[in-house]
């Protein structure tokens, strides 16, 4: 059975905070849930399916969170794929709804790394010693920034991608962020600003990196009958895909592509549309290189031509061929909990509804896409793609 169109995103809400020292993590989740349910015109009593990522939800999986919000569930899923979890949850919710396991699915994300002073990008994070790779990796100082930097370096080596080309991703994001009153970095920047910013992990500069922010977001997904009874624009889930990528045992290591190659292909096949049909794309932007690799892997341009594609403003709404991250994305607006997938889906829903900021709203918003990469391009990650249709 095809799952295409068997669920709709009816609620999408992003927490306006970027720094929340006085709000607990669980309260942040719950405020996001309330925001998304209010947006949909539904109540917490309607929720019978809950989706969260174990890693940003205190307690055992989502159990404590479900109790905190008073949820009584028929379907429960705390799958964690890092920053792409929420894209993945859209697909999992679609499956659960289509098979009758639940009727109204709630997805939440929250995090407060800024208030907690987490050195998100530059400090190697110790995992669990039971992770067999840890003893062979942690001593070498792998941090988020230098892992993505190694992917960038190899992309530059194989395809001639330049720092100036990567900088265009940030420039485009900043052009959008200027219209977002909540964006952490609303100032428009130039290619020169990016390449002259301090080097963090060569070849990535400070302005090649996303922001560190508190915040969160939530989605409400439901079956067609309920969606059509609500007052919101109809945003139908027509394609989803997920895939993992790793070092695969060390032979033929290839850091020039991401799991988006497989997750994107699966989502496009399910949706029955092509990359050229997509009018707006939310693309995970932990770093500028992340965007370049993913647009190649999703088929918006050929492998190796991503740098050329993003140059000259092709990602800028109203200017280029592929308007992206019109909220300013992780590079300029926010990256709540170090997990950017949720806000990718939320801005895609805004675009599909025609509710993005008028300065960045795409005219034809019939087909939009939201893609996430969770984990690291330099080691192991999970990609997840969502394609939405405005009905």
């Amino acid at each position: 059975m095809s799952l295409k169109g068997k669920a709709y995103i009816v609620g999408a809400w992003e927490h306006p905070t970027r720094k929340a020292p006085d709000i607990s993590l669980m309260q942040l989740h719950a405020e996001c849930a309330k925001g998304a349910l209010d947006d949909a015109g539904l109540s917490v009593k309607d929720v019978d399916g809950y989706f969260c990522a174990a890693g940003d939800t205190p307690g055992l999986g989502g159990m404590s969170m479900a109790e905190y919000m008073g949820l009584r569930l028929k379907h429960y899923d705390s799958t964690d794929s890092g920053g792409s979890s929420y894209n993945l949850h859209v697909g999992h919710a679609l499956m659960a709804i289509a098979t009758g396991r639940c009727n109204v699915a709630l997805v939440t994300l929250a995090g407060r790394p800024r208030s907690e002073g987490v050195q998100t990008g530059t400090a190697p994070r110790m995992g669990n010693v039971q992770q067999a790779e840890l003893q062979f990796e942690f001593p070498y100082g792998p941090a988020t920034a230098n892992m993505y930097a190694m992917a960038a370096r190899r992309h530059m080596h194989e395809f001639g991608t330049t720092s100036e080309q990567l900088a265009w991703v940030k420039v485009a994001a900043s052009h959008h962020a200027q219209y977002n009153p909540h964006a952490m970095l609303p100032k428009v920047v130039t290619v020169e600003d990016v390449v002259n910013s301090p080097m963090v992990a060569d070849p990535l500069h400070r302005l090649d990196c996303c922001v560190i922010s508190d915040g969160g977001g939530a989605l409400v997904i439901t079956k067609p009958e309920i969606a059509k009874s609500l007052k919101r624009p109809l945003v139908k889930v027509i394609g989803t895909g997920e895939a993992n990528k790793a070092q695969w045992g060390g032979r033929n290591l290839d850091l020039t592509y991401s799991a988006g190659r497989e997750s994107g292909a699966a989502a496009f096949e399910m949706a029955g549309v092509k990359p050229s049909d997509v009018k707006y794309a939310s693309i995970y932007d932990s770093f500028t290189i992340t965007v370049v690799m993913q647009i190649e892997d999703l088929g918006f341009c050929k492998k190796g031509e991503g740098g050329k594609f993003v140059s000259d403003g092709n990602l800028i709404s109203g200017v280029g061929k592929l308007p992206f991250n019109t909220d300013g994305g992780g590079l300029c607006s926010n990256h709540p909990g170090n997990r950017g997938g949720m806000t990718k889906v939320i801005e895609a829903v805004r675009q599909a509804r025609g509710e993005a900021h008028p300065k960045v709203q795409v005219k034809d918003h019939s087909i939009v896409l939201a893609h996430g990469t969770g984990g690291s391009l330099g080691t192991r990650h999970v990609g997840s793609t969502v394609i939405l249709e405005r009905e």
Partner: protein
Amino acid sequence: MSERVYQFVGTTPGTEPYWDAAKEGKLLLRYNKDDGQPHYYPRQICPYTLSTNLEWREAKGTGVIYTYSIMHAAKPAYVIAYVTLDEGVSMMTNIVDTPFDQIKVGQKVKVVFKDMDDGHKLPCFKVA
């Protein structure tokens, strides 16, 4: 400028020979005896076939830089890299004892062992 500290994480059952050999200045690789192929990082079960018919073999200790990044945000700055060994597998490592301007993708490197915080030694690479 302070010296970089290499923190030993600990072994998991079966990986002790790797770290014992490193103390002797040897880099070991894990091979599947069924097909004679290596993998990295070393496991007790082959990530290609799930065979447990494995053995350790000493690597030549030479290879080329697949990619690298100089971590300028750290003090002191350090160079993380993947080195593709002559045996065909790539390993995460650090490039050490090498001026930053001599570090290039494709550069030939050879293994050197750095003291860790607890007496273990860590395989790193320098320009050959």
